[in-house]
């Protein structure tokens, strides 16, 4: 497995507060990387650094050897698609049109028929074909999220004719979804990874994270405090320290997959509170 994206020692500060500190990670071909962490841990900021939306104060992000600012916006768009949190639209676009927005940048070269195919397939995968004629603004939050997923899929598919090694970034893509659609979206993301792309997902549900991640990244107070195969890095100590909950932690029979049942929250840490985590996971 080769890394499509490599981030080394990323830090990001704004107005004196450091949101990400010294983060290094690699997104590998065919792998699903899931980032977890409590609110304000820097997950979304890390994602913005990796997608090029923010420039790091320190460190660098490299895609196939080239550092991010050197890659032109259009080429970058062919190589990676991003689904961000909380998508609102000021104007009454239809679901079909929102999905098609994924092609406004990278789809220029595609024929009209090919665009139609790409959109149809993306809507199908995201499970929103039936909503195609509806106004986006009239949808529920979960439905809107699935439409945005379809939009990202459109971009990825259109970009594939230009760039083979692609990355899909999803920032809390299942936050408003029902259980069935949570699984179907994550399945779709994983099958995109299976075709050779790298996938990075920010999630809150630890059990889903453990189930779907090839590689789990745990963030706390801007730093990556643990990363690796979920089954090996998760332990009681880490979870208590980072998430401030006590859990019953067990392993499910067939493959020994970790299973977490939250029991009681501990006192939430104030920002800047000291946690002896680095030592525990170094």
């Amino acid at each position, binding site marked *: 497995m080769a890394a499509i994206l490599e981030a080394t020692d990323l830090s990001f500060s704004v107005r004196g507060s450091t949101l990400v500190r010294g983060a290094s990670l690699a997104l590998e071909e065919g792998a699903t990387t899931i980032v977890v962490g409590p609110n304000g841990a820097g997950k979304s900021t890390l994602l913005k650094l990796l997608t090029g939306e923010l420039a790091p104060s320190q460190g660098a992000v490299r895609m196939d050897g080239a550092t991010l600012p050197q890659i032109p916006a259009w080429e970058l768009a062919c190589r990676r698609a991003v689904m*961000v949190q909380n998508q609102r639209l*000021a104007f009454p*676009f239809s679901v*079909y049109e929102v999905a098609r927005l994924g092609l*406004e*940048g990278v789809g*220029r070269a595609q024929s009209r028929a090919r665009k139609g195919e790409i959109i149809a397939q993306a809507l199908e*995968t995201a499970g929103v074909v039936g909503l195609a004629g509806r106004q986006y603004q009239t949808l529920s939050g979960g439905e809107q999220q699935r439409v945005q997923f379809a939009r990202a899929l459109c*971009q990825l598919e259109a970009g594939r004719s230009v760039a083979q090694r692609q990355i899909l970034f999803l920032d809390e893509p299942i936050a408003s979804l029902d259980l069935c659609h949570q699984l179907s979206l994550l399945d*779709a993301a994983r099958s995109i990874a299976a075709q050779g792309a790298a996938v990075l997902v920010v999630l809150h549900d630890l059990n889903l994270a453990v189930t779907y991640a090839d590689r789990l990244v745990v963030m706390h107070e801007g730093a990556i405090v643990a990363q690796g195969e979920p089954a090996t890095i998760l332990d009681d100590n880490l979870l208590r320290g980072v998430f401030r909950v006590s859990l019953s932690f067990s392993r499910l029979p067939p493959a020994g997959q970790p299973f977490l049942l939250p029991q009681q929250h501990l006192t939430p840490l104030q920002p800047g509170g000291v946690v002896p985590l680095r030592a525990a996971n170094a």
Partner: protein
Amino acid sequence: MTLAVKQTPSASAAALAVLAEGRRRKGVLAVAALVGLCLLLMLLSLGAGAFAIAPGRVAGILMAKLGFGPADLLDSREALVVLNIRMPRLLLGALVGAGLAISGALMQGLFRNPLADPGLVGVSAGAGLAAAATIVLGDRFFLASFAMKLPFAVLPFGAFFGGLVSTLALYLIATRQGRTSVATMLLAGVALGALAGSLTGLLAFISDDRQLRDLTFWALGSLGGASWTKLSAVAPIVLPLLFAVPLLARGLNALMLGEAEAYHLGIPVQRIKALAILLVALAVGASVASAGVIGFVGIVVPHLIRLSIGPDHRLLLPLSAIGGAALLVGADIVARLVVVPAELPIGIVTAFIGAPFFLWLLLRRGRIAEL
């Protein structure tokens, strides 16, 4: 090369194709209807006024001019009125209307806000201030004989310059490290607009009666001064705008998702914003310079178009241009007919249509919490 787990059943693809085809047909229909309306209003406009000419006769004169009818028609008094007085006025109205409506659509796209308008962010006010300065201060600083001609020669350029300067100021205030903040720009625009308004008021305060009358008429907007010369000054500015607009449609569509998302989609966001702002400054400057301050065209037209065919800028921008032309040509007919043989400043007519419409928009917007 498949996208994901499920294959697309051809049935849903076919249903989507039908949907897309339906939208396309609706767009074509809307274009045809608006173009038809615009042409009809233009024909009426050439005949309407204190000196009424029947539409049939107008058509005859136009045909004769194009070489398809008896040439002696062209020597008539009607032909003179139609070709030398009403035609430039009609074309000026159409260009100004198209320019203002497109500017409105561009700004609404840029600000992701259906209520944005060049009048709102101080561009019109800046152009107005420069024009007022030309009218009032021109007399004091130039020789009297030159000053007599001044309003006609210098005023358009003054207004144009004012629009450009205020847009540029806005852009510089709102841009930090290569990124333009739309919220800052909107707020700064309101402040700059108020400043320009107060300075214009000050100029009105120190002006004499004749200047005050000039100022008032100019602030209300009028197509009365139209001539082929004036038209030839405005057309080279507004026409390129109409052709540049398709370049912006995709970018503006992507911007509807937000600036970061547009960047993710591969859109050169900063370039799109700069180009849109420049085009708005040019169009508003040119139209304020040639026809005074005409409000509400930029809000009413794009909104009506959005209601009928949706917010896709690839259709919205060209249709706004046609609709804006139709609205201003229509408003000019009204302005010329209601107080015959005098005429109303056209700004009064557009504000009379536009202001209630704007209120209706606000009330309706209150019910759609999402907006």
